């Protein structure tokens, strides 16, 4: 089966019901996309399909078709992704970092859809779990990206 990943066409031979996550990690060897729950609960495995956020652990390979898959490996090739990464660094978002590939993907997908999301939209779109509790800082980074300034929480 052919797949378009990060702008390249690749040939894969996993079974059609294999979750895209494991195709990316095992067959394509790109480990930036993380496995946290395998059940659409955490968002660590988030990637973009044609710029829309999906959870790759519940995306069967057969659903991908000829959509463009974008993983965290290519995030800086995307101008929006690059801005997100910059702000993630500026706000020092990651702690253990394990959820952050997914957080960055979710942020990028939102901003691609709407460059100036409101607070509500940010809350609506940023639903990935973070066990390290970086939620306040993620929110700060998002408000900054949306041009809404910092919230009332603590920032650095």
């Amino acid at each position, binding site marked *: 089966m052919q797949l378009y990943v990060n702008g390249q066409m690749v040939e894969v031979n996993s079974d059609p019901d*294999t979750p895209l996550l494991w195709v990316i990690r095992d067959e394509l060897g790109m480990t930036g996309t993380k496995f946290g729950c395998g059940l659409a609960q955490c968002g660590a495995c988030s990637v973009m399909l044609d710029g829309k956020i999906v959870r790759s652990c519940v995306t069967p390979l057969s659903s991908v078709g000829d959509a463009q898959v974008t993983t965290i490996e290519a995030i800086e090739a995307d101008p929006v992704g690059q801005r997100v990464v910059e702000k993630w660094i500026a706000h020092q978002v990651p*702690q253990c*970092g394990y959820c952050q590939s997914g957080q960055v993907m979710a942020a990028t997908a939102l901003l691609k859809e709407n460059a100036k999301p409101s607070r509500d939209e940010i809350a609506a779109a940023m639903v990935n779990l973070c066990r390290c*509790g970086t939620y306040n800082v993620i929110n700060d980074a998002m408000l900054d990206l949306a041009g809404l300034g910092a919230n009332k929480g603590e920032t650095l």
Partner: protein
Amino acid sequence: MNDHDPTPACDLAGDSPQNLSRRRFLQTSAGVATGALVIGMGIPLQPARAAGAAQMAPGTNVPAFLEIRPDNRVRFLSPFNEGGQGIFTGMAQIVGEELDADPESFIVENAPAGHDYLVVFGKMRITGGSFSTRSSYTTMRKLGALARNMLLQAAATRMNAPIGELTTEPGHVIHKSTGQKIAYGDLAKDALDLPVPDPKSVTLKDPKDFRWIRQPLKRLDVPEKSTGKAIYAMDCKVEGMLHAAVQHAPRLGLKPGVVRNLDEVKAMKGVHSVHKLDGAVAVVAERFWVAKLGADALQVDWQEPSAAEKAKIRYMPADFSTEAFTRQLMETKGDGKEAETHGDLKSAFASAGKTVSATYHSQYVHHAQLEPASTLARFNADGTLDIWLPNQAPEQFQAQIAKTAGLKLEQVNIHSPILGGFFGRHFLYPGANPYPQAVALSKATGRPVKVIWTREQEFLRDPLRPMAAVRFRGALDASGMPVAIEAISACEGPAESLNGHNPNKVDSNAVEGLTGKAYAIPNRRIAQVYVKNPTSLAYWRSVGHSMNDFLYEGFLDEMADAGGKDPYALRLKLLEGNDRLTTLLKAVGELSGGWKRGPFTAPDGSRRARGVAMASPFGSEAAAIAEVSLNAAGKVVVHDVWEAIDPGSIVNPGIIKLQAMSAATLGVSQVLMEQVVYKNGEPEARNYDLYPILPPDRAPRIHVKVVESGAQMGGIGEPPLPAVPAAIANAVSTLTGKRVRSMPLDKLSLAT
């Protein structure tokens, strides 16, 4: 990009099977031409050698820690693992300060196993107990100073100048009078040949001259964690590797019997082999997903162990339920063994104006770190074993793995990738780590094998934060001031669960947070009644404090109410004369805009209340205030948490603030929603579906103030947690008029 195994990522981080010497390999991997100049390679100093007569004190063997590259970048092997707490950056700041090298020029990795790295109190090595910085602060500063001294010596020779005339500026040695300036990278090779000076010969900087310590420097690991480049154990791969998934016995202690569909699973496309292991059956395959489906499919007849076997292990009986066990703990009688006593409890109660009593309890909780456990094992042609696994104590794992694999210590190379969260998950817990499986499977297949535990298998074997029921009673004098408190905890502590229960001792981990409270209540008695758990137990972020401060501070509020006192004012009163804690409590009061308890009506019309609590964990001090309301469904909404934290003295205020927010958030998660429920000997939840952890839409705003009292340095990774659940529960008690005596709040019916 297709079938072949892509870049063996973990070989880049560790050593290669192709027998490049480690030194050459590092030079190549760093993209450095031959003749690279290095101080030390951070090679796993083989313990056989290190154990010789000329053994150096841990933390002094400069070459075991530092490599300075020609481009002036400093590679530092950290004795502590990075799991999000910022320790790699903290280490770079501390060492860089005395070395006089910009922490930003550091590349930090976790050190291999070895004597040189046993820097915790000079004799052990764990990343835990919020020990890392405070236990090694001086040692690591000395290490930097020693390295600087070696560079100065090398420069003195090179510049032909007296060492006393030389100074440094970041990354360079300077001879002011001649204007000579040599980069560290150029001096590294010469410096390498020099013996490490006597640690006593170096003087440390005056803190007022600190350039980097105390600065909110940016974390070194943030860029790669923001771009998916960070490599966790889960991501490790080596040439020729197979994947394995397991099906664990549904209850601890059961053994695999017949696998009914063994042939069918073996015949699945892509399956390599099926193996019976201790308490598990594994499916090995070329790809993980196939292994996972195979492991799910296995129809195993699980066998009860014999009575003799049961006696030797923690066996989970088929009728165990947390509900019944909670009741059992609540009904446990007895005075227990004393952990802390002061004054005369008996006469205090005899002459009390009023007494209060209540039984509180806590719950089992999961670590639920986002990275499930995994281990990659590879036996090499020379009989050595390379093993990549998340761990908080490499030497302990090395010893255990050597034993398991029948190898000598020096034949086991432990690689400790950064941790995708840990919170106490990655210690040596029996039955809770995949390494025995990876070793057995790698041995059986003759190929490297990576075992990944799915979330379901992880939750089935995650050792739990213990639960406790605490019987409190308190005595008040005629004016309503507490004069006596007794707390008897029915609990098994994590330490005694791991190391064996000593009937003559109290597990301090079981009672910390009931003990060590700073309030001047003159008569007190804290005791433990040991009740063995069938579950495996573990350390969990802030250990005993994670529950005990919740239990104690709740009861303290009950005593305040019984005596007609405001809980904030009462705490201030009980801390009279304790400047450090008075300052701290006032700081959090101010941070919150001035103490008000409520209930009050917020501008949005909701009824709200605030609660306060304090904790003294791991050498640090914390005070928190929380504001809550109830939503339409009767569930608690936490709006704000204000926390003042005093770790004595600090290295990086930015990291401290973020750690405090992180720990506080975990505290919110625990008190609102976390609880491991067992029914019929099995945990009800196997994933985040039935064990929800705090989602973003329930996370409060968290406001942190770091107060530096200048006291002895305490920990920071855990201390901000314990006060938070208590502050929230106290706020909820005030709001609802119903006393909260257990967690999680989501399971209580609070609607008024």
